């Protein structure tokens, strides 16, 4: 590639493509969906091209799982096999929480690099970049959840229920992650730097995931902590997932988990959208 050849190509007119139609506008409803889908495609291609982002959200829970199963498992549950049966459903919830925090970091990066400015200078619906990003992340949540399940099976996790229950479990964690991603989206709109979103996101995730019954049954905890652990949405979701993957009560914890998810969504989704409109 020489400078001479570039100069030669540079004098070709930009507008030479015959038949490039002028952009079509005004079809608000369907075009918003179409643009959202295009932007979701971008998010998915991005995940495929940078698998390290997926590894990031999966690796941490994997390390926690290995640590807890092999280091503390024997002490907590008597032996590592029965501890894995106890812990894996909760770690699945933890995985999608980490993945949903990634939504906030990704949006913050897009705001930070100026790529949102480019989207906003295009004749597309204002919400398309936000909804496209979240749409793509739903796929990412599912992928990271499946990876975690496969990893659990490799370690020796055995399903105590049928395939339908497993699919329902994945559906439930995705509902929970979808509700929670609005918290991180709102955070991304008020915090200026992707690193700060990650740091503050961690402060939100820690009490949610460790102040829960994901790793240790609530009964062993002091009363003040148990008060939080027993109402923590992560505990409720983890309980429902245990029922769906291992066996045991499902309806009770599932309903409470869904109420939590609906509550989080009802508070944070409008807040995030308002902040998004203000920011963009």
């Amino acid at each position, binding site marked *: 590639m020489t400078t001479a050849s570039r100069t030669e190509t540079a004098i070709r007119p930009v507008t030479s493509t015959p038949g490039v139609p002028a952009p079509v*506008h005004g079809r608000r409803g369907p075009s918003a969906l179409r643009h959202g889908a295009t932007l979701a495609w971008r998010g998915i291609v991005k995940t495929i091209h940078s698998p390290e982002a997926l590894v990031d959200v999966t690796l941490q829970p994997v390390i926690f799982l290995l640590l807890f199963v092999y280091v503390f498992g024997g002490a907590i549950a008597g032996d590592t096999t029965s501890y894995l049966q106890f812990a894996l459903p909760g770690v699945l919830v933890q995985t999608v929480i980490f993945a949903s925090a990634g939504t906030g970091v990704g949006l913050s990066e897009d705001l930070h690099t100026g790529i949102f400015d480019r989207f906003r200078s295009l004749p597309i619906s204002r919400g398309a970049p936000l909804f496209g990003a979240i749409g793509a992340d739903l796929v990412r949540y599912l992928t990271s959840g499946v990876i975690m399940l496969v990893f659990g099976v490799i370690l020796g996790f055995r399903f105590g229920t049928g395939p339908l229950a497993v699919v329902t479990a994945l559906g439930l964690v995705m509902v929970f992650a979808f509700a929670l991603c609005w918290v991180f989206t709102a955070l991304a709109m008020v915090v200026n730097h992707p690193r700060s979103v990650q740091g503050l996101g961690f402060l939100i995730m820690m009490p949610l995931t460790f102040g829960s019954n994901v790793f240790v049954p609530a009964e062993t905890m002091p009363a003040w902590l148990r008060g939080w652990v027993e109402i923590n949405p992560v505990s409720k979701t983890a309980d429902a997932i245990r029922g769906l993957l291992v066996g045991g009560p499902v309806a009770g914890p599932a309903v409470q988990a869904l109420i939590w998810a609906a509550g989080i969504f009802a508070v944070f989704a409008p807040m995030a959208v308002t902040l998004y409109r203000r920011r963009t």
Partner: protein
Amino acid sequence: MNSVIDVEGLVKTFGSTTALAGVDLTARRGAVLGLLGPNGSGKTTTVRVLATLLRPDGGRAHVLGHDVVAEPAAVRSRIGLTGQYAAVDEALSGTDNLMLIARLLDLPRRTARRRSAELIEQFGLTEAASRRVRTYSGGMRRRLDLAASLIGRPEVLFLDEPTTGLDPRHRNEVWEQVRTLAGEGVTVLLTTQYLEEADQLADDLVVLDRGRVIAAGTPATLKTEIGGQRLHVRPLHRADLAAVTALVAELTPDAPIVDATGGLTAPAVEPGLLHRVGARLDEAGLTVAELGLRLPSLDDVFLTLTGHSAEDAEATTEEAAA
């Protein structure tokens, strides 16, 4: 209607900071309008308002006859924007970045592919087209960014400091592209803090300082009106500098200014000065490497207009921000 961009009394404040304090400007069809000023003078804010990214607090702005506040969609479909930082997705390939924008502009898939390929070729990115942008050099990113803003064949192109941080070779490439576009009839609004860049590219100039227009006109007009001609002499031997300075001082009203390269400049007011200086140098037996009349640089213009240099203004803005 000849003016493509029409701005009247534009005001924008951020909290207690006034970014734009009543800016007026117009851009002619097919011309390159240079928006010149130091950091914090309001260049980027002006571009963001015109590209419908920011609502002004006062004044009016029309792009291609459409009000940027009332009809943002109509404006967006006909403009291209290349911001200060290359707004391309690092995780996608060059082609995918262009395809993304093309699809968002509702080009049918096949047309989108053809248009992307065409721009990739035009911007000399063919070999890197399928590589992730993460592996691109700064110059390649800027070129891709510029290509992305051209997908929809915009009639007006906003370039916010398009060459900041580029080395001279890549800067020249961007300049070449801007000239090509202007030649095709695209109206370009270009912000820069490089006086040389404005001089090279702009047909018309608007000089901004602290949110106000302090001068407007063609680069040549600005130079002649404000600065006037200058005499420039550089002796061949540095040892002769003092003698040459003394000689020139006798013939010019203001004392000559000695610059870092061992030359000196003085305002050339009377006609025939060049001849007389040449004759006197000959008489004195002083040899010079350079002797001539020059238009002042845009740096000189800025100094004359604001009473401070571009760098000073920048420092003041940063202090104010700190």
